[in-house]
């Protein structure tokens, strides 16, 4: 398995703790420290001297994240000097939020995100899509400029939806989906942090299943979905998880989106809600396009040997898919 390499395990633990440092610190400076350690520990996880694309990805990651951290530090210091740490100016907020956005890979600083994720393995991309978002999101939630964030949300969801239409690489597709979901998460932050935690947990649950499934099937591109000889149950799992990611009821992916729409409407942000819904329709379209090609197309069957996909984690995937399918209904049983 991936983690049995002790070096990687070491860096993984440092990554974990860096996030904890960042979110539990008193001062902005402590946040910055956590961010730096995060950056430093993630680079070795990505880089693989055998793979050219991976090492290029690690370099690009380093450059972008470094600039974002520098900017963050500069803004903190600027704020300390100019405003004596007592008040917040809107422009300072914009600068601080921009650096956080760049850390996360949100629009308008998202160009590195699909680029880099192309060079990562599925496990690394899982970390990049889920864990690396925690720190910037929480720092964003400490103080943000509401107008700026709303514009960024709108851009996020549009770019996430439309950018993903023309992709054939599964990793880039997940990256654009991640950008779209960043928009949802930022709107959750605007409302309350508990809501963000809820959305984030469910989102990372779904992404985990997807990345696991793709890792086991060893698939990186869409055409691999219908060339390989998957058995029917794996295809069903794929279907359920993609539909859940797209936010289709009764799967569990619908639940967080529904709650967010509910709270947005409570706070009278109607136009935003409309935009969310329309763009998630487009996202759902291209998920279904993928599933459709996986399900309906005939696959190649070689006559002289059988391609046998052996997976030890099938039971985990099945269990998680079961939660995906019935989670919403089962969760209503827990509150009575």
């Amino acid at each position, binding site marked *: 398995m991936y983690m049995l390499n002790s070096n990687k395990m070491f860096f993984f633990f440092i990554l974990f703790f860096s996030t904890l440092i960042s979110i539990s610190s008193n001062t902005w400076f402590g946040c910055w420290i956590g961010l730096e350690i995060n950056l430093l520990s993630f680079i070795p996880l990505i880089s693989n001297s055998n793979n050219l694309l991976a090492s290029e990805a690690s370099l690009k990651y380093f*450059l972008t994240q470094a*600039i974002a951290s520098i900017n963050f530090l500069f803004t903190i210091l600027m704020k300390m000097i100019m405003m004596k740490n007592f008040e917040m*100016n809107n422009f*300072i907020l914009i600068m601080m939020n921009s650096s956080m956005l760049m850390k996360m890979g949100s629009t308008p600083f998202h160009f590195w995100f699909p680029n880099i994720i192309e060079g990562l393995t599925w496990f690394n991309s899982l970390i990049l899509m889920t864990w690396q978002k925690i720190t910037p999101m929480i720092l964003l939630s400490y103080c943000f400029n509401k107008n700026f964030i709303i514009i960024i949300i709108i851009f996020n969801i549009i770019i996430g939806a*439309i*950018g993903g239409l*023309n992709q054939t690489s599964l990793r880039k597709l997940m990256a654009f989906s991640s950008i779209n979901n960043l928009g949802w998460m930022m709107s959750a932050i605007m409302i309350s942090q508990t809501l963000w935690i809820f959305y984030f947990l469910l989102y990372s649950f779904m992404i985990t299943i997807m990345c696991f499934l793709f890792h086991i099937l060893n698939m990186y591109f869409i055409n691999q979905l219908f060339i390989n000889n998957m058995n029917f149950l794996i295809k069903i799992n794929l279907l359920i998880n993609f539909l859940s990611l797209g936010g289709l009821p009764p799967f569990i992916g619908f639940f967080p989106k529904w709650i967010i729409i509910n709270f947005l409407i409570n706070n009278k942000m109607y136009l935003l809600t409309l935009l969310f819904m329309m763009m998630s329709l487009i996202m759902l379209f291209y998920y279904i396009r993928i599933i459709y090609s996986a399900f309906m197309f005939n696959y190649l069957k070689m006559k002289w040997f059988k391609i046998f996909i052996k997976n030890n984690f099938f039971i985990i995937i099945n269990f998680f898919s079961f939660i995906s399918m019935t989670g919403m209904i089962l969760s209503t049983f827990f509150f009575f």
Partner: protein
Amino acid sequence: MNDMKYSICFISFIFLFLMSMLNFIFMIYFIMNNMVFFLEWEIISFNSMSIVMAILLDWMSLLFMMFVFLISSVVIYYSKSYMSSELNLMRFIILVLLFVFSMMLLIISPNIISILLGWDGLGLVSYCLVIYYQNLKSYNAGMLTALSNRIGDVLILMVISWMMNYGSWNYIFYLEFMNNDWEMKFVSSMIIMAAMTKSAQIPFSSWLPAAMAAPTPVSALVHSSTLVTAGVYLLIRFNMLLLDTFFFKLLLLLSGLTMFMAGISANYEFDLKKIIALSTLSQLGLMMSILSMGMPDLAFFHLLTHAMFKALLFMCAGVIIHMMNDMQDIRFMGGISLYIPLTTLCMNISNMALCGIPFLAGFYSKDLILEMVSFSSFNLSIFFLFYFSTGLTMFYSFRLVMYLMINDYNLMSVYNLYDEDYIMLKSMFTLLFMSVVSGSFLNWMIFSYPYMIYLPFNMKMMVIYVSLIGGIFGYLISNMNIYSMNKFIMTYNLSNFLGMMWFMPNLSTYGLNYYFLNFSQNLVKNIDLGWSEIYSGFGMMSIMKKYSVYYNIYQMNNFKIYLFSFVVWMMIILFMMLFNI
């Protein structure tokens, strides 16, 4: 399997025949002792409405049921031989039995809901029977039948909803007491229209000739005696409600016109079953019009006798069609009396009964009707319609006889016409016996006192005069040969008009369909597959794809540019901040 499909015919024949005899016995008992049975079962009663399932057994329903069972038993026995080469004979027999069951429900119900059950069942099963042979003509005919009947169903549904005003759906109780209510006016108009659709009166008369695409036993049972008389029976039941209303006078006019039109159109037809269908239509018009004059028992009488000889006529037509290798055009037939005398016997007797030749079945009902018409005070147009149609009846009957029996055989030069199909003959002889005897029998049973009729001599002989003239014309018109045909070019338009039932079928098919279908074709082409695709379906998708491609192009740029853009953004924000503080 072979044995089983024959024995289902036999079993159902025995069963229905025994039911018919049972009804006969009960009917005699009920008439003699003037009894009525009313069995009811209250299903539910809430607020002011009570839903009740009721069965009314009086002499009228028992008599009608006896006739229906008799004819259907004979028809099923007949179809054992007629439909013997049918693969799915079980299906056919079951459909016929379903039909008889629906008719029975209709006859014994004093309750408008169970009338609806029977009525809808009749419409549905007659549709299934009309489309029994699955070709294009049957499909079209079935659609026409089903939709025309459907209008009547809708009207009865509306009657049900209007009758909720009265607390229960047993219309029997509200016929005389409530007939001046405002709601009852709606009920009565809708009932009349529903009966008109079922009995194919003038606005709805296009389905009856078209329904001849059904197998001949079906025509014998359904389209001659039971389905089309359901409308008449409904009006007989509702007669007390409808006397002296405006709608009844309207019905008189329309049914008189139906009688007239059908009689004329039957003279221009060359399809054997269509002639008999139009003859049925003419007799239905007669029944409806005498009903609308306020004489329901005469209408009932004619209904029953007509059922007998019309079913017999259809059966003879079935035998002839079998002989002619399924050819139905009368121009190909001729000289039948020389080859199949027994069938000719049945056909002649039923034709004569239809025309009202004295002392056969039709005479008692038809002659009585015509004398009652002369005796009441109606105007000249009604008088004309009745008597002229009687003459027309003789006209087309005689023409049919000339074409079928007297002229030469026209089909092929090698033929084998045989009469010895004893199954069909036995069925026909049963009906033959009934069509000779039932007229007088019913006359003595139903009318406890004779009608008082006092007419001058010439009016009494008017029936004979018009019949004679009709007969002479029938003889003359069937003597036309090829040399006299060229004069017909001059009357081409008129012949078309009169022979195509005054173009009314076109109104109820093309007139209703054409403009709507045209319009919807335009809509589909221009909007559904046109503009709506650009604005919502395909257009949206192509726009999205285009923008996605633009985005991809925009994204494939140098890494330095991303970083540079970020730095520039920061600079801008920084300067704005500095200048604002």
